C-alpha cells in the first residue's frame, strides 16, 4: 500500500531518541502527515478567531467596568471568572456568618433559658449529653445534682409566681428522677437516701406553698420520689391551697402546738410524708437522732428500716406530745 504524501510537522518527533528511532521514523512521519492533514483551513481559523477575539474583548470591557457588571453565572458570559470567585467568597462568608450568628444566638438563648422558655428543654438535653455512663456512681451524683437544680428552678419560678415555669421544672425533675436508681453499696445508699430525703422535704415545702399549675407536677415529683424511696405515695389534699394544718411550721415541730386534726397520720411528729416539712425526722439512714427532739430514741427501733412506714411507728411518736391521742409509750 502506498503511504500518503503527508508532510512533517515541526517539533513532532524531532527530539525522539533511543535505540528504535530509525524504526520509529516511518510511523512518526506518517503521524506527522496525518496531523498536517487535520489542520484547520484558514476559513475555520478566521471563524473561530473572530468569536474568540470578540469574547476576549468583551471580557476586558467587563473587567474594566468592575465586578458588578460582570455576569454572575457562567452561562451568561465568558468573563465570569472575575465575578464568580468574588461571589463565591462572599456567599461562603455570608453563610458562615449566618451560621455562626445562628449558633451563637441559639447557644446564648439555650444557656440563659429557664423553665417555661423555648430552649429550656434543649438546655436540659445538652446537659444530659455530657452525663457520665448510666449506672456509675458519678452518674448518680450528677443526676442528684441535676435534680437539685430542677428543684431550684421550681423554687425560683414559684417565688416569681410563674406557675407554668414551675410546673415545667417539676416535670423536668420527674424526668431526671426516673433515671435514678439506688446504689447497692450500703454507704453510698445511705448517703443517697439522705439526699433524697432532703429533696423530698424541699418538694413537700414547695408543694405546700404551691398555688397553681405546678401542683400536679409537684405531686408527680413527690410520687416519683416516694416510689424511688419505696414508701407509699401520699394522697395529695383536695385543695391546691395548703391548709394551715399542713403548713410546716404548724405542727410536728416543737410538740407544743397541737394540730387541729388529731389524726394519727398528722400527729406522728410531722412524719406524714404527704406534707411533712421534716421528712428527715421520720427516717435517717445514719440511725438515731432527728430534729424533733427525739434524740436518743433511734437505734434499731427508729432507723432499722430505710423507709418510713405509713403507719406511725413507736419511734416516730416517741417524745411527741402534740397529739391528743398519743400512741403507747413502750419502754418509757
Amino acid at each position: 500500500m502506498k503511504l500518503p504524501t503527508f508532510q512533517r510537522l515541526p517539533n513532532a518527533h524531532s527530539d525522539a531518541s533511543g535505540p528504535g528511532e530509525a524504526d520509529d521514523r516511518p510511523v512518526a512521519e506518517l503521524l506527522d502527515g496525518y496531523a498536517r492533514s487535520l489542520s484547520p483551513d484558514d476559513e475555520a481559523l478566521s471563524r473561530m478567531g473572530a468569536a474568540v477575539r470578540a469574547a476576549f474583548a468583551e471580557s476586558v470591557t467587563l473587567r474594566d467596568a468592575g465586578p458588578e457588571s460582570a455576569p454572575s453565572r457562567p452561562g451568561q458570559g465568558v468573563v465570569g471568572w472575575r465575578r464568580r470567585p468574588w461571589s463565591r467568597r462572599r456567599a461562603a462568608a455570608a453563610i458562615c456568618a449566618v451560621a455562626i450568628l445562628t449558633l451563637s444566638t441559639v447557644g446564648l438563648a439555650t444557656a440563659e433559658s429557664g423553665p417555661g422558655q423555648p430552649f429550656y428543654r434543649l438546655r436540659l438535653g445538652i446537659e444530659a449529653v455530657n452525663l457520665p455512663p448510666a449506672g456509675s456512681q458519678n452518674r448518680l451524683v450528677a443526676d442528684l445534682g441535676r435534680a437539685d437544680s430542677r428543684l431550684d428552678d421550681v423554687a425560683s419560678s414559684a417565688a416569681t409566681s410563674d406557675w407554668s415555669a414551675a410546673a415545667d421544672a417539676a416535670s423536668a425533675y420527674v424526668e431526671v428522677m426516673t433515671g435514678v436508681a439506688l446504689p447497692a453499696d450500703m454507704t453510698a445508699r445511705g448517703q443517697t437516701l439522705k439526699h433524697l430525703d432532703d429533696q423530698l422535704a424541699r418538694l413537700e415545702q414547695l408543694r405546700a406553698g404551691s398555688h397553681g399549675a405546678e401542683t400536679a407536677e409537684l405531686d408527680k415529683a413527690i410520687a416519683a420520689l416516694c416510689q424511688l424511696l419505696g414508701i407509699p405515695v401520699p394522697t395529695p389534699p383536695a385543695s391546691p391551697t395548703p391548709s394551715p394544718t399542713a403548713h410546716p411550721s404548724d405542727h410536728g415541730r416543737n410538740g407544743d402546738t397541737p394540730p387541729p386534726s388529731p389524726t394519727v397520720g398528722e400527729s406522728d411528729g410531722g412524719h406524714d410524708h404527704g406534707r411533712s416539712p421534716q421528712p428527715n425526722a421520720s427516717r435517717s439512714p445514719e440511725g438515731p437522732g432527728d430534729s424533733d427532739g427525739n434524740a436518743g430514741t433511734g437505734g434499731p427501733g427508729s432507723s432499722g428500716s430505710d423507709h418510713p412506714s405509713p403507719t406511725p411507728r413507736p419511734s416516730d411518736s416517741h417524745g411527741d406530745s402534740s397529739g391528743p391521742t398519743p400512741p403507747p409509750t413502750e419502754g418509757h
Partner: protein
Amino acid sequence: MSDVETQDLVDTADLVERARSGDGAAFAALYDVFAPRVYRFFRFRVSAAEAAEDLTQRVFLKMIEQLPNYEQRGIPFAAWVFRVARNAWIDEDRTNHPSVSIDDLVDSAAEADGPDDLAAAAIESEQLRKAIAALPPDQREVIACRFFAGLSSRETAAQMGRSEGSVRVIQHRALAALRRKLPAVDRATGAESQVAPQ
C-alpha cells in the same frame, strides 16, 4: 502550517503577561500560535470538523476565563493550554461519543493528488485512526500531544504530569505498536532495514 504557528520557540510568557493585562493583540498572537494545534488535538478524535471547531473555541473561552489565574510555576504555558484542552475533551467524551464517518475521512485526506491517492489516503487515515484508538490511554495521549498538538517532550511531560523520560519511553512504545498495527509501514520499515546494511 502558518508562519505564526512555526514560531514555536516564541517566548509566550511575554504574550501571556500582556494578554492578562487585556492586550488584545497579544491574545490574538496566542490564538494564532495555539489554535491550529488545539484544533488538531481534537480533530483526530472527533469525526466532524464542526465538533473540533466547537471544542477549540471552548478551550479558548476557558482560557479567557482562567488566564488571570494562570501563574508561571515551572509549567510551560503550552502544557497549561493542553490541560485545559484535555479537560474539555474529557467533559465532551463523557456526554458524547462521536462516530467516524467515511465521508469525513475522505475529506480529511483531500490534500492527496489524484483519485487513487485520495482513496489510499482515506484508507490509510482510517487504519491510522483505528490503530491510534486501539492504543492504551497513556500512549494515545502522548501521540496526541506530540504529533497532533505539537508539544515537546517537556511540555507533554508537564501536561501529563510525568517525567520527560517516561514520555519518551511511552512514545517509543506507541510508535512500535502502531508500526505493528500498520502492515504497510511495517513492510516499509523492514525493507529499509534490509537495505540499510548494504
